[in-house]
C-alpha cells in the first residue's frame, strides 16, 4: 500500500478498520447504552419483581436459611465434578450432598431482588491446592426470602449487558476477544478520525442537512464523533482496562498457575485471612452483628453506607471469615472499603487499607465505566453518549456506501450493496431484535419452562431475519439507489415500540398513567417511555426518508427528461 500523505494513510485505516469493526462496535455501543438501565429492563421483563429496591436483609434471620436451600447447579456438577474429583481417593459425592464452602450475596441501590450464591467444596479433590468449587446461584425477594424463578431471564442484566462485552458468544471466550480487538481499534479509529478531519473545531457545530446526502451524512458523522469524543475515548479505553488482565495476560490460570496460587497464599497470609480450612467444624457467630460493626466503622470514617457485597468463606469451619463490602453508590471509584471478620468469634480480622494513587486511578477508571453510583442524570447523559456513538458508527456505514455506490454501479461491483445490507442489519435490525425479544417476553406465559431460552432464540432469529430482509431488498444499491429495507425496518421499529408498551400494559396492567401518576414506578415507566420515544424517532425518520426519496426520484425524473431531450436533439 502506497500513500501520498499521512492523512491519506490515516483515511484508509479509518475507513477499513471502521467498516470491519464498526459492526461489532455498534453492538457494544447500543447494548452498552441499554446496560445503563439493565436493572430497570429486568423489572420490565420480570413483573414479579416490580417493587422498590431493598437494602441487604438480615443474614441471621433470612439469608442463612436461603443459603442452606441453594443446591449445586446440575449442569455444572455433571460437567466439572468428574474433573475436580480424585477417583482414587473415594466415591464421587452425590450432587446434593456436597458441603458448602462459600456464600455470597450482592445488591445495588437499583436492585429490588437480591442475587446470592454458594460455592460447594469437592470432598476428594484431584487438585488439593485448587480450591475448586461447584456453584449454585439464586435470586430472591429480600422481603420474604422467596426465590424468583430461574427460568425467567433477566433480559437487561443477563442478556443486553453481557452482549455489549461478550456478544454472548461464550465458546472459548471468543466474543470477549472480538470485543477486545474492536475496543482497541476503536481507539485507533478515533485517533485516525481526528487526524483526517480538517476542521475539527471550525466544524464542530456544523450539520448541513440541506446539502447533498453525502455531505450531510459526513457532517453528522463528524459531529456525533467529535462532540462526544471524550466519552467515546474513555469508554473504549476503560472497557479495555476492565478486561486488561483477561485480554493481554490470560496466563494466570494456565502458564503462571503455580505463581498465581503462591501469590494468593502470600496475600492471604499478609492480610491475616485464613487461606485454608482448618478441617474442624465450628458454629458461626452472628453476621448481623458484624454488619452493624462494619457500618459503624464506615460511619466513623465519614463514609456511612449500606452493604453491597457480603461473602462468607470456609463456611462451618473454625477458619471461617466474613468479608463485608460497602455499596459504592455515592462515588465513582469502585472500592468497597472491605472489613473482614472472624466467622466464629465475630472479631475484626482486618480493614482494607486506603488504596494507593495508582490503584485509585484504576478504581476511578473502572468505576466510571461500570457506574455503580447513584446519579440518574449522569446515567441519562451516558445513554446520550452511547447513542451518539451509535449515530456516529451508523453514519460511518452510510457514508461508506454513499461515497462508493455510483462508482460501484458503473463498475458493476456488488461491494456497496453487501456493506449496505450489513449496515441495515446492524443499525435497524439490532433494534428490532431487541424490541422483539421484549415483546416475546410479554407474550410467553410466565410458567413456560425454558422461557428465557425461547426469548434468546427470538432475539437471534429476528436479527437473522432482518439480515435476510436487508439482503433480499438490497438490489437497488448496486444501481446506486437506496435500499428500501432501511425505511421498512425503521417503520417496523416504530410499530414494535408501541406494541411492546401495549403488551406490557395488557399482560401486567401497568400502563403509563399508573406507572407515572397513580402508582409511580419509574423503572417500568422509563422503559415504556424510551420505547415510545424510539417509536417516535423512527416515525420521524420514516417521514424524512420518504421526503428524501421523493426529491431524489424527482431529480432522477428530471435528469431522464434532460437525457431524453438530448437524444431528441440528436
Amino acid at each position, binding site marked *: 500500500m502506497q500513500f501520498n500523505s499521512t492523512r491519506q494513510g490515516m483515511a484508509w485505516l479509518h475507513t477499513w478498520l471502521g467498516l470491519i469493526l464498526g459492526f461489532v462496535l455498534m453492538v457494544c455501543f447500543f447494548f452498552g447504552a441499554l446496560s445503563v438501565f439493565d436493572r430497570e429492563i429486568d423489572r420490565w421483563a420480570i413483573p414479579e419483581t416490580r417493587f422498590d429496591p431493598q437494602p441487604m436483609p438480615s443474614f441471621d434471620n433470612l439469608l442463612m436459611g436461603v443459603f442452606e436451600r441453594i443446591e449445586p447447579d446440575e449442569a455444572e456438577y455433571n460437567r466439572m465434578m468428574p474433573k475436580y474429583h480424585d477417583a482414587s481417593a473415594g466415591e464421587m459425592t452425590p450432587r446434593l450432598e456436597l458441603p458448602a464452602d462459600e456464600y455470597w450475596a450482592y445488591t445495588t441501590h437499583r436492585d429490588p431482588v437480591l442475587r446470592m450464591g454458594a460455592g460447594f467444596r469437592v470432598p476428594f479433590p484431584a487438585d488439593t491446592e485448587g480450591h475448586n468449587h461447584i456453584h449454585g446461584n439464586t435470586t430472591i425477594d429480600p422481603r420474604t426470602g422467596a426465590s424468583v424463578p430461574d427460568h425467567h431471564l433477566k433480559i437487561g442484566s443477563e442478556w443486553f449487558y453481557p452482549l455489549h462485552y461478550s456478544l454472548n458468544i461464550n465458546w472459548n471466550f471468543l466474543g470477549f476477544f472480538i470485543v477486545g480487538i474492536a475496543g482497541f481499534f476503536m481507539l485507533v479509529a478515533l485517533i485516525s478520525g481526528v487526524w483526517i478531519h480538517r476542521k475539527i473545531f471550525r466544524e464542530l457545530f456544523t450539520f448541513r442537512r440541506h446539502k447533498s446526502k453525502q455531505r450531510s451524512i459526513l457532517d453528522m458523522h463528524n459531529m456525533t464523533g467529535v462532540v462526544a469524543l471524550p466519552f467515546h475515548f474513555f469508554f473504549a479505553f476503560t472497557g479495555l482496562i476492565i478486561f486488561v488482565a483477561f485480554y493481554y495476560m490470560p496466563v494466570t490460570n494456565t502458564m503462571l498457575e503455580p505463581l498465581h496460587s503462591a501469590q494468593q497464599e502470600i496475600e492471604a497470609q499478609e492480610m491475616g485471612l485464613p487461606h485454608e480450612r482448618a478441617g474442624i467444624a465450628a458454629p458461626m457467630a452472628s453476621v448481623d452483628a458484624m454488619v452493624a460493626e462494619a457500618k459503624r466503622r464506615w460511619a466513623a470514617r465519614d463514609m456511612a453506607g449500606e452493604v453491597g457485597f457480603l461473602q462468607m468463606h470456609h463456611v462451618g469451619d473454625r477458619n471461617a471469615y466474613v468479608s463485608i463490602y460497602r455499596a459504592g453508590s455515592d462515588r465513582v471509584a469502585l472500592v468497597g472499603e472491605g472489613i473482614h471478620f472472624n466467622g466464629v468469634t465475630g472479631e475484626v480480622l482486618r480493614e482494607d487499607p486506603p488504596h494507593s494513587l495508582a490503584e485509585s486511578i484504576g478504581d476511578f477508571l473502572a468505576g*466510571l465505566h461500570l457506574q455503580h453510583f447513584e446519579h440518574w442524570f449522569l446515567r441519562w447523559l451516558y445513554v446520550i*453518549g452511547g447513542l451518539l456513538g451509535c449515530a456516529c458508527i451508523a453514519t460511518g456505514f452510510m457514508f461508506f456506501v454513499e461515497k462508493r455506490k455510483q462508482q460501484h454501479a458503473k463498475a458493476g461491483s456488488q461491494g456497496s450493496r453487501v456493506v449496505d445490507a450489513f449496515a441495515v442489519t446492524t443499525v435497524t435490525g439490532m433494534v428490532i431484535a431487541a424490541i422483539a425479544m421484549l415483546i416475546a417476553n410479554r407474550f410467553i406465559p410466565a410458567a413456560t419452562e425454558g422461557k428465557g431460552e425461547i426469548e434468546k432464540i427470538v432475539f437471534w432469529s429476528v436479527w437473522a431475519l432482518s439480515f435476510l430482509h436487508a439482503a433480499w431488498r438490497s438490489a437497488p444499491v448496486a444501481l446506486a439507489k437506496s435500499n428500501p429495507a432501511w425505511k421498512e425496518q425503521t417503520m417496523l421499529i416504530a410499530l414494535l415500540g408501541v406494541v411492546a408498551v401495549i403488551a406490557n400494559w395488557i399482560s401486567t396492567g401497568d400502563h403509563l398513567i399508573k406507572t407515572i401518576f397513580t402508582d409511580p414506578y419509574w423503572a417500568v415507566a422509563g422503559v415504556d417511555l424510551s420505547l415510545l420515544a424510539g417509536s417516535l424517532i423512527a416515525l420521524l425518520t420514516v417521514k424524512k426518508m420518504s421526503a428524501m426519496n421523493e426529491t431524489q426520484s424527482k431529480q432522477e425524473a428530471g435528469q431522464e427528461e434532460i437525457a431524453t431531450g438530448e437524444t431528441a436533439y440528436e
Partner: protein
Amino acid sequence: MNEAAWLTIAFVLMLLAMSWFALSLKSHWKQVTDGKPASRILRSLGWFCVMLSGLACLQADHASMAVLVWAMLSATAAFIVGQVLSYRPTLLRPLALFRA
C-alpha cells in the same frame, strides 16, 4: 440549593457556552444574524461559562462525579447547539451579542 437546581444551572451554562463558541465562528454567526462576530470576546465568554458550569457541577456532586457530569454535559450541549443551528438558527439571535 439542591442538587437538581445546580445541575440545571450547569446545563444551562454549558448550553450558553456552546452557543457562544458556535457564534464566535463566522459561518454560524451568519446563520443567526448579519455582520461579523467579535470572535475573541464571544470565545472568552464561552470559556467563562464552561468554567462556571464546572463550578455548578461541583456544587451538586463529589468532585470525581462532577468531572463526569461536566464532560457529558459539554457533549450533550454541543450536539444540541449543532442541531439548533441546523433547524432553528434564529433561536440563538438573543445571544448574538458583540459584533465586530
